[in-house]
């Protein structure tokens, strides 16, 4: 059986920016074959210039990406993906505005051809405080956010500084479990959500990530003069030249207090085997590493002051001593 396909679920209530995020990811796929499953095609959620053709419920996009509408049968749409001529590199599932992304994740866990990498939930910063306690729908929105491994606090450009401070304080008070990233127009570093096309060798990845951040900067500059409120993403490379307990490390990297939103790479496990560590927000996994990789982790943070030394200190890596 081939390796399970990585899946990221994108949740959030109506108008939180899910479609905009998907467009952003598709625009920055850079040769990575993304498959995007959306609830309905709606009012052309995909940029017209990306579309190459449509057949039934599948739209083909430039660069080998596809977009499928799944209506109310997600498992069937996932099955269809497996029957495609070539498999996608990464799958994004856009949950409907009232769906609980955690429940989708649970169902996904039943299908071994797929592996859930993370649940990303967007929150409209202009309304989240009121909408999460709103009549009828409040508990659904609150449950969506509780399901998140990583929250994208979106539309920050629409807030005054005072409001910005208030909503950040509110988030701190209410959503302590998962990290969040600040965003404008659903823009975040694509590397946070999927792996850039590159050699399995990690050195190439740092530069890929840097260019991705660069393109975000140019995007936000073009579309908004409030780009300073959006997160700037910083890549940190972590080399650990000693065998460690991979599970412990992965859990530490996924701890909100560590300050990371994403980590991916390979470590030498205590039993001397090579392991892949995968972290999206608070969710982490450790699996056997593929052949031919060398150790090293790329971590992404939104705090510009976060240094390799601080991550090492939080994870207790300094205590390991020299290799």
């Amino acid at each position, binding site marked *: 059986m081939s390796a399970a396909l990585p899946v990221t679920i994108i949740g959030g209530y109506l108008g939180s920016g899910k479609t905009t995020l998907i467009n952003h990811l598709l625009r920055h796929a850079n040769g990575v074959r993304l498959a995007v499953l959306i609830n309905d095609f709606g009012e052309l959620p995909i940029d017209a210039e990306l579309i190459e053709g449509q057949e039934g419920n599948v739209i083909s996009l430039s660069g080998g990406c596809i977009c499928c509408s799944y209506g109310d049968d997600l498992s069937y749409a996932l099955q269809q993906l497996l029957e495609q001529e070539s498999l996608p590199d990464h799958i994004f599932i856009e949950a409907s505005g009232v769906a609980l992304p955690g429940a989708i994740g649970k169902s996904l866990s039943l299908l071994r051809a797929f592996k859930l990498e993370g649940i990303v939930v967007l929150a409209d910063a202009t309304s989240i405080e009121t909408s999460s306690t709103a009549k009828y729908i409040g508990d*659904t929105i609150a449950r969506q956010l509780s399901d998140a491994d990583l929250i994208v606090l979106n539309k920050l450009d629409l807030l005054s500084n005072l409001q910005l401070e208030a909503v950040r304080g509110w988030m701190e008070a209410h959503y302590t479990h998962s990290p969040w990233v600040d965003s404008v127009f659903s823009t975040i570093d694509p590397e946070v959500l999927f792996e850039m096309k590159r050699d399995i060798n990690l050195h190439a990845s740092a530069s890929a990530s840097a260019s991705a951040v660069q393109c975000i900067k140019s995007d936000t500059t073009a579309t908004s003069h409030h780009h300073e409120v959006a997160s700037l993403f910083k890549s940190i490379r972590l080399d650990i030249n000693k065998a460690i307990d991979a599970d412990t490390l992965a859990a530490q990297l996924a701890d909100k207090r560590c300050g990371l939103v994403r980590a991916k790479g390979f470590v030498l496990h205590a039993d001397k085997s090579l392991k892949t560590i995968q972290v999206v927000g608070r969710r982490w996994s450790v699996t056997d590493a593929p052949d031919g990789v060398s150790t090293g982790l790329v971590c992404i943070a939104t705090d510009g002051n976060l240094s390799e030394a601080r991550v090492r200190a939080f994870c207790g890596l300094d205590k390991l001593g020299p290799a």
Partner: protein
Amino acid sequence: MTTIYSAKKIITMNPTRPTVSHVAVRDGRIVGAGSLTELAGFGDYTLDERFTDKVLMPGLVEGHCHTVEGKWWRYVYCGFHDRMDPHGKVWSGLASIDQVIERLMEQEVTLVDPAEPLTGWAIDPIYYSDRKITRQQLDRVSTTRPIGIMHASGHIMSVNSKALEMADYLRTGIEHEGVPLGDDGLPTGELKGPDVMRPVGQKAGFSDNMLEFDEPGLIDFARLCVRAGVTTATDLAAELSEATVDMGIRVTDADNFPVRIMSLRFHHGVTPNELIEHVKILREQSTDRFRLGKIKVVADGSIQGFSARMNWPGYFNGAPNGLWYIAPEQMLAIYEMALEFDIQVHTHTNGDEATDLVLETLEAALKKHPTNHHRFTIQHGQLINGAQYRRLAKLNMCVNHFANHHFYWGDEHYNLTVGPERAERMNACRTALDNGVPLAIHSDAPITPLSPLFTAWCAVNRITSSGRVQGEHEKITVDEALYAITLGAAYTLDLDREIGSIEAGKHADFAVLEDDPTAVAADKLKDVSVWGTVQAGRVFSASDI
């Protein structure tokens, strides 16, 4: 040429002359109802006396069912209660899990291909002592072919080890509340919820689209209608792809197709704008026997699945509140556009919070597009309370209650889901009528059997399957129940100008009965036997359908 039918009694639902002895029919429509002498005034006629010892009623109208029942009869019937199939065979109810296994074994030996799945439906383990059916029990039938049985509620499926294995579920380490595990850490074979059921169901012989009818299924469904005295039936939630619509129009157009089908477009999978645009197109394609152009919205889940949206204090057993299947903004967008373009919307609610949302949303939409002829209908509305009925009445809304639920799951509601007080006022037909809310009652076939007379019996007697009367106060009279399954249901479908009563100008649609439902004891209403139907003047006998 006019045909005048004589009958022992004709119940017309026309208050001017509630019962008559003759009805005159020409070109599929009713010329008049009265005495032979009166009707002779219309001119030449042929007297048809085949119904002289029968009782005629307006053709029964099933306002909430799914034509897919015809397709499900190709699976093995595993229900607890006796049920008649499209060909008139009565499948005896199965009193124990052993009897279920026995029936499956009987069917298993008829399958030639060793890989062919064995597919069953309508099992309801709440009636069995251990309340569960396991994969090990189904393995007694076969360990080599996949077996899947859909539960009566439609929310749970039981499968054998082979089906689990084929879907790659037969392993340890599964963590999902919809997949209970046994002591061995492996799934027990019980699967709860559509997301969990689908991947295994496909291996066990269930088609991809459980709700979409196919051609032989539609024809078999029509046979069930004739047996139940039904001349107009809904197909309450369909995607209505172009191919399905073409097929539906073609199949129902056949001279011997005995029932008028009204198929409603389901809101899922498309945006409100796309939905409205699709329904506008569908409306133009509508034919006499395949009616299109209405919308079905689903607001929440089910009460017994604990997915209905409940107001405080919520579920009796403390389960968390259920799920929304539509966002309030989308519901508002659909309602506003539907009112603007004169499209009728039927909305499924089960929990009382979902009903509140519908009421609030329609009130807002009506402010934008005021009309008093919209006939928006709440489907199920099982927990509607007094205040909500008063608001329904004010908004000119209709309700179609799931009366059969009392009999099949009333005890579950009493003991587990909503508790005694609210269970006694579930599907509160009396309060609906007392508040002037137009009322229909339904079976939701294939969830419960298609039989409006049985549904009427449920609403009149409110007896649960354990034999208790649940909610004496909410009983309605036989006359009210018979109205609900004819003119009442026709009203909710905006068809009362055409059908629902036997009076001049309407379609010649009759239910032909062996007994008089108004003369038998109220608790025998379900036992009134159906000879067949007349639909648009065409006679269909159940015995040779």
